[in-house]
């Protein structure tokens, strides 16, 4: 009989257990009560979490790295190169020796001073084969770095390289503290990040968010900013939300304040939302359809040109991007004012399905052919792939679509399994053409599998041009040749659109990255 009473307790016991459990969980995760009204936090949403928060070792650079570190050279709102951690620089007559004069009074987040040895350490470590830095190739022009004194550094180049300023202003060139690897070992880039930037590293919950706090000692902001001191708000949180619709819903409900890369289909709906402001600018991106040029039938220039004629770019811009893009006929975005070939549209291939069929017939494919079309599985690429499939089918090219997430897409391209595939690059410099089309980059990142001596010759000549102007000229020749050879089928240049909640004040759009330390602030309730 005694046994029976025991089981009355089960539901009661269960409820008690639940209450206790929830209480413990709640206490653990609510943390100390935050006085929300007093701390100013801006939240930005991203679609992926970085592998590591280390500019030297990362293959993909989280936005956080831009705010944790400063670079020798900064880029202003007109994309001009301005002083950063280097207050000025001189180049020798032969273009082989660059002397950088460094800013004084700069300290790292741990309080130690910034000096020339940190610059040397950073660049040496990037170039060290043992580090296996993905950025090493970008600095291959540098032969060695010499410390002249605490605030002067000289870089000796193997050949003239006016583009060095671009590379030194890149996220990957964030100046790190000498010896941080020895001091922190494997923790560096995961639990500890030290830089000189306007924000300091607080915590990284893997897969969920990166929390940065303002650097109260920061007073060396670039001169072109309206604010050279610490950021006006307290915390910057970068949240990882893989689902596109969740990112937008978070923006609408106020869980997130800043969204980069608004999907074009949602832009108009967000524009009508009084709580959200949309900022638009010409982007430095190019979306294109590429071929595996060493596989039949794409090794035939007639086929490549035919496909160029088969694509109706205007329809794509109108319906996939809701008009928030520009048709592309060339290989660089027009935003790169100096290097962009202005006649790209004139020399490019217009929409002309009849001509496409004629060219295919000339190449021996009057009945068309079958192939695969690969793309990433984000909403824009998926839709673009299906529209391209329909347009190619109109000229007799039957395609089977294969979708991948970003990591497996890269793996697939490295393995060389692609035929037709969609790509989008985002890069503010003409050397993107080196990256993708030099035969030395075969098979990846030269996933077009394009090995052409003339292209190599033109690109190498441009990359080693002695002056910026000469360089721009030669890159225009490169573009001319690429258009003629129809190496890619350029399709669109998307507008750069950011969605920002109205609580965020003084938001300005910057051609490269959001400059949170330049006077941006947030209204608290």
């Amino acid at each position, binding site marked *: 009989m005694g046994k029976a009473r025991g089981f009355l307790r089960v539901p009661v016991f269960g409820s008690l257990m639940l209450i206790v459990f929830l209480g413990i969980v709640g206490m653990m995760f609510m943390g100390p009560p935050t006085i929300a009204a007093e701390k100013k936090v801006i939240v930005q949403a991203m679609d992926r979490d970085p592998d590591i928060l280390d500019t030297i070792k990362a293959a993909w650079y989280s936005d956080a790295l831009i705010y944790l570190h400063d670079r020798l050279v900064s880029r202003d709102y007109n994309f001009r190169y301005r002083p950063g951690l280097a207050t000025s620089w001189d180049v020798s007559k032969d273009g082989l020796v660059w002397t950088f004069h460094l800013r004084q009074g700069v300290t790292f987040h741990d309080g130690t001073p910034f000096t020339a040895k940190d610059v040397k350490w950073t660049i040496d470590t990037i170039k060290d084969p043992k580090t296996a830095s993905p950025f090493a190739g970008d600095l291959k022009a540098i032969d060695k770095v010499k410390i002249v004194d605490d605030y002067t550094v000289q870089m000796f180049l193997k050949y003239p390289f006016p583009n060095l300023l671009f590379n030194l202003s890149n996220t990957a060139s964030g100046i790190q503290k000498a010896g941080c690897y020895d001091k922190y070992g494997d923790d560096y880039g995961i639990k500890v990040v030290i830089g000189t930037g306007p924000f300091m590293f607080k915590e990284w919950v893997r897969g969920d968010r990166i929390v940065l706090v303002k650097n109260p000692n920061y007073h060396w902001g670039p001169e072109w900013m309206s604010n050279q001191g610490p950021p006006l708000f307290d915390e910057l949180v970068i949240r990882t939300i893989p689902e596109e619709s969740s990112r937008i*819903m978070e923006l609408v409900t106020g869980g997130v304040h800043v969204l980069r890369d608004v999907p074009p289909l949602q832009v108009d709906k967000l524009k009508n939302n009084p709580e959200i402001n949309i900022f638009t600018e010409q982007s430095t991106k190019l979306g294109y359809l590429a071929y595996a040029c060493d596989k039949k039938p794409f090794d035939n220039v007639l086929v490549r040109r035919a496909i160029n004629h088969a694509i109706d770019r205007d329809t794509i811009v109108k319906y996939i991007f809701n008009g928030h893009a520009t048709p592309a006929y060339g290989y660089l975005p027009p935003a790169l004012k100096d290097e962009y070939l202005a006649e790209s549209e004139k020399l490019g291939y217009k929409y002309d399905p009849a001509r496409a069929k004629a060219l295919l017939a000339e190449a021996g494919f009057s009945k068309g052919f079958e192939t695969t079309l690969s793309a990433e599985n984000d909403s824009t690429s998926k839709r673009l792939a299906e529209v391209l499939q329909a347009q190619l089918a109109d000229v007799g090219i039957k395609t089977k679509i294969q979708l991948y997430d970003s990591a497996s897409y890269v793996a697939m391209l490295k393995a060389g399994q692609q035929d037709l595939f969609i790509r989008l690059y985002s890069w503010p410099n003409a050397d993107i053409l080196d990256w993708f089309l030099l035969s030395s980059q075969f098979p990846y990142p030269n996933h077009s599998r394009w090995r052409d001596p003339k292209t190599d010759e033109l690109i190498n000549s441009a990359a080693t041009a002695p002056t910026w102007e000469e360089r721009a000229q030669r890159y225009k020749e490169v573009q001319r040749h690429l258009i003629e050879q129809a190496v890619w089928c350029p399709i669109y240049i998307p507008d750069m659109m950011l969605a920002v909640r109205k609580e965020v004040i003084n938001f300005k759009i910057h051609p490269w990255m959001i400059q949170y330390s330049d006077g941006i602030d947030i209204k608290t309730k």
Partner: protein
Amino acid sequence: MSHLLPPMKATGVVIMLRYFARRMTFLVLTLLGMTIIIFSMLHLAPGDPIDLIVGPNVTPEVRENIRHQYGLDRPLVIQYFGFMRSLLHGDLGESIIQHKPVSELIAERFFVTLELSITALVISFLIAIPIGIKAALKRNTITDYALMAVSLIGISMPTFWFGLMLLYIVAFKLRLFPISGYGTWKHLVLPALTIGITDAALVARMVRSSMLEVVRQDYIRTARSKGLAERVVINRHALRNALIPIITLLGLRIGWVVGGSVVVEIVFARPGLGRLMVDSILARDYPVVQGTMIVLTTCIILGNLFADVLYAIVDPRIKLR
């Protein structure tokens, strides 16, 4: 809970121990079997196992080095023993994409999934038990039909769809809870409710059946004929015997709940093991896939064992077997 057990006699202890020994053997065998299956998955896959371990962008020499290093050029049985040795030392290999030990990646996210699974399970049983009992007691009345209809809808819903609906209506339109993320108890509510409610739908039916079985038994009729109040009959006799098999259910549902949390973590962007597994599958990061599979199934099997042990403690009849 000592009043639940009859006075322990020597033979009683022996029988208990024998039961435990049997269960432990079964446990070890199941775990071994699971490792064999997961291990052989690597070799059953089409293509060269090397591709799955190091990825496609390595030179042939590095390939052969890695092949030798991982012992993939040795007979399968030897490979299996090597695999088990590493496993028992906690070494689950290294991620191809992130170049970090798999065990580290798993450790970072383990608690997230654990928290979700346990909360979901508790919610499920808290909802299901009262509903099941009520439906059984009011058998064939409107209440019963209504409750069972709702439960039928619950078991017919894909979990991810229910999660999306909750997300859209409760989090987005009503703004009662966060849409995604991890950190406070608020972030746990919707994901746990998603799994908890769909699981409860099934468990409620089982509770109802069990209750109905018990209520039909002779000893209940005896109690009633003795003139005891219905409430006493139910609470003292029926409930306890009906709930005993439900406890084994706990063990069975753990597997389902963990499986459900894989999808729910993706819908609600929780950084847990399930999401790690699916992301790694899409990224072809095989060592991580293998590692998370092993950890998840070990937890499920251990969970089953826990439920069995609980059952044994609670049901005195076990000793007679």
